[in-house]
């Protein structure tokens, strides 16, 4: 290429580029302004309801329909609906609340309401509970569902669905290994050893990036043994004998290869794949595992609760809840919307959109829900004995958010799953990790 031609060609391109740039600069910026103003719909005259992607997009569409279809009594405000992504949701809520652009009503993380209550941002739901008493829904709550939300100052939030951790198993693997489904820890260990001979894992879990099933497995085994991280009065109680026993048992499963040595790095996708590929024979998981992992053969079913060495039985429950915020255009409107929304929840289960238990007995009796025997078994056998993260304590609090998502539990879980520890020193490190971050 000669110098001359090069000059002309770059000059030409440059002009083209600049022309393009000028056009791009003016048009999109104007469009951006327009796009922005159109979206500022959540102004003062409406109750902003923020919801999470609890299930498939169809769920959010249905919930949106309920929220936007809400026709308030005269004097009350209408509601708007907004889906908030799970990724970095705490950042999203915090920054919105700090800048007074947050919601009036929202779902969210399991213990989010207590965190924001601590910071004076939550409007108590006592009046909503009263309304629920009047309209009969209060008596419809499954046993023990509402109590954890009662604080000294009032109801911090209202539960609307129960995210359960229960044991699932794959029937065919047990048949193939020629062993019965475990009923207690001893038989779980024995079954695990047999399952290992056919290349399956007797306790499937995972604590890779973004997967908290591993964390929940630890706490679940503690409460299954009558232990837990807190005393009934809410004091930290990590080192109790029942916990030590539970962790020793988990470590025994690790050393026997009953827990997959790679489980420490399993994401939820990896774990789903283990279930789908008949690698996972038994283990704790959420509702609706067959649909989640894409195996509808009926081979994956809910197990009955198993007994710990002292005969204790328990599962784990995260009562997801709807909270109201002090920053609202009208508290009365927030309350009226929440009461009305609670009354419409059944639609979500009728449309089979939910991966969680309902909080209302009447919904558990709907044919759309009870046609799945796994659901029925969970309601009958697991829900009554399910404990929250606060176990042995009864009421929820902001510290549980730190426990659930925090680094202490995650490191503890990963330490146990890699097996390079003993129960007491792992729990000791867990306790000191928690002590340094929990509010007294």
């Amino acid at each position, binding site marked *: 290429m000669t110098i001359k031609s090069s000059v002309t060609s770059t*000059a030409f391109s440059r002009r083209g580029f600049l022309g393009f740039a000028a056009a791009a600069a003016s048009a999109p910026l104007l469009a951006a302004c327009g796009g922005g103003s159109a979206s500022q719909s959540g102004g003062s005259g409406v109750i902003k309801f923020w919801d999470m992607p609890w299930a498939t997009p169809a769920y959010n569409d249905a919930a949106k329909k309920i929220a936007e279809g809400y026709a308030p009594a005269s004097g009350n405000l209408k509601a708007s609906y907004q889906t908030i992504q799970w990724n970095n949701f705490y950042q999203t809520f915090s920054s919105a609340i700090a800048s007074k652009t947050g919601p009036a009503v929202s779902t969210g993380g399991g213990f989010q309401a207590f965190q924001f209550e601590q910071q004076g941002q939550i409007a108590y739901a006592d009046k909503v509970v009263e309304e629920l008493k009047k309209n009969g829904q209060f008596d419809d709550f499954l046993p023990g569902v509402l109590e954890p939300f009662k604080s000294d100052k009032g109801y911090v939030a209202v539960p609307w669905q129960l995210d359960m951790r229960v044991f699932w198993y794959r029937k065919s693997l047990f048949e193939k290994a020629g062993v019965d489904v475990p009923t207690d820890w001893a038989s779980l260990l024995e079954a695990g050893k047999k399952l290992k001979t056919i290349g399956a894992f007797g306790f499937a879990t995972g604590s890779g*990036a973004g997967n908290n099933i591993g964390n929940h497995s630890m706490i679940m085994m503690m409460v299954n043994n009558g232990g837990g991280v807190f005393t009934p009065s809410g004091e930290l109680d990590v080192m109790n004998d029942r916990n030590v026993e539970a962790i020793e048992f988990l470590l025994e499963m690790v050393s026997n290869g009953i827990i997959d040595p*790679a489980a420490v790095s*399993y994401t939820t*996708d990896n774990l789903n794949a283990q279930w789908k590929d008949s690698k996972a024979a038994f283990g704790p998981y959420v509702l609706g595992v067959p649909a989640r992992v894409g195996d509808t053969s009926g081979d994956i079913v809910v197990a009955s609760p198993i007994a710990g060495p002292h005969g204790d039985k328990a599962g784990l429950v995260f009562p997801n809840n709807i909270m109201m915020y002090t920053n609202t255009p009208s508290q009365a409107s927030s309350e009226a919307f929440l009461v009305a929304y609670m009354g419409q929840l059944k639609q979500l289960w009728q449309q089979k959109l939910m991966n969680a238990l309902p909080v209302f007995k009447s919904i558990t009796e709907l044919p759309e829900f009870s046609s799945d025997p796994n659901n029925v078994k969970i309601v009958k056998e697991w829900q009554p004995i399910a404990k929250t993260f606060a176990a042995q304590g009864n009421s929820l609090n902001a510290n549980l*958010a730190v426990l659930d998502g925090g*680094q202490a539990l*995650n490191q503890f879980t990963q*330490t146990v799953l*890699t097996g390079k520890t003993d129960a007491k020193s792992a729990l000791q490190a867990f306790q000191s990790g928690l002590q340094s971050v929990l509010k007294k």
Partner: protein
Amino acid sequence: MALTTAQTGLSRARRGVAPGGSGKPAKPANRKSKLSSQTRKTFFWLLLPSVVLLVLIHGYPLAYAGVQATHNGSLIDTGEFVGLENFANVLASDAFWKAARFTLLFTIVGVFGSWLMGLGLALLLRTKIPAGGVFKVLLLLPWVVPIVVSSTAWNWLLGTPDSLIPSMFRNLGLGTPLFLADPTLAAITVMVFKVWISFPFMMMMTSAALASVDTTVYEAASMDGASRWQQFSQITLPLIARSTYISWILMTIFCVNDFPTIYLLTGGGPVDATTSLVVLAYRTVFQDFQTGPGVAIAFLMTITLVVVSVILYRQIRKSSVE
């Protein structure tokens, strides 16, 4: 932007610039004397938008973070002033130093790994190769794919014992490495992942720098009997030194500040084998809800980064003065 054509000026510009391709940086004398008050005024206006943005997008959050780091509040409440207590606590914690060590290693491997790979490919692509342009574009892909997606793809390739790569190792009789579950392997995997993401950037930087090297110098050198290695180390490298330093600085910042690469692939685990300072800061602020200490970690990291950048920056100045 003015578009008036000044052909004479342009051709003069061309003539003036062309020899600069292999020459020294333009260092006109008496530059200061040109800074009349009129010039100063123009410079002020030229600089103004950048100053406004710097204060708005970087200055304000930095000041805000300074407040957070010296208080014991949350993301919403400022809380009480605690002085340097957060810094003292952070500096006294093992987790901080462990993360600092990992960050250092991650950065060194990230910067030099991607640089060596990028340099090698740039040198290769500089020669005549059939469809070279296609490869150039294809090799940029790792840098272009969203990390949410590439981290998932990597997880599929090596996350479980039955994934493609562990299976390949097994079939070769090399055992079944647990690339993400074994702490040491996980650390290595994350670094390899980072190199994989970053090498295209280095390749692009180096390619372009090489393109500006006048090849006639090689002819002279080979006539003088310089070996290929001598040509490379004594001609090529010094000629692209400035670009190299700058790419090192940028990559150092990219590595130290990198959050998604690590967080999405390992979450910082197993235990804390792959927890870098940013991941630690993130988890401290958003998972442990310890805003003050978490922001203090980010601050300490920033200070270190600045020191390293300034040292490298000096190197650039030196290399361009020589």
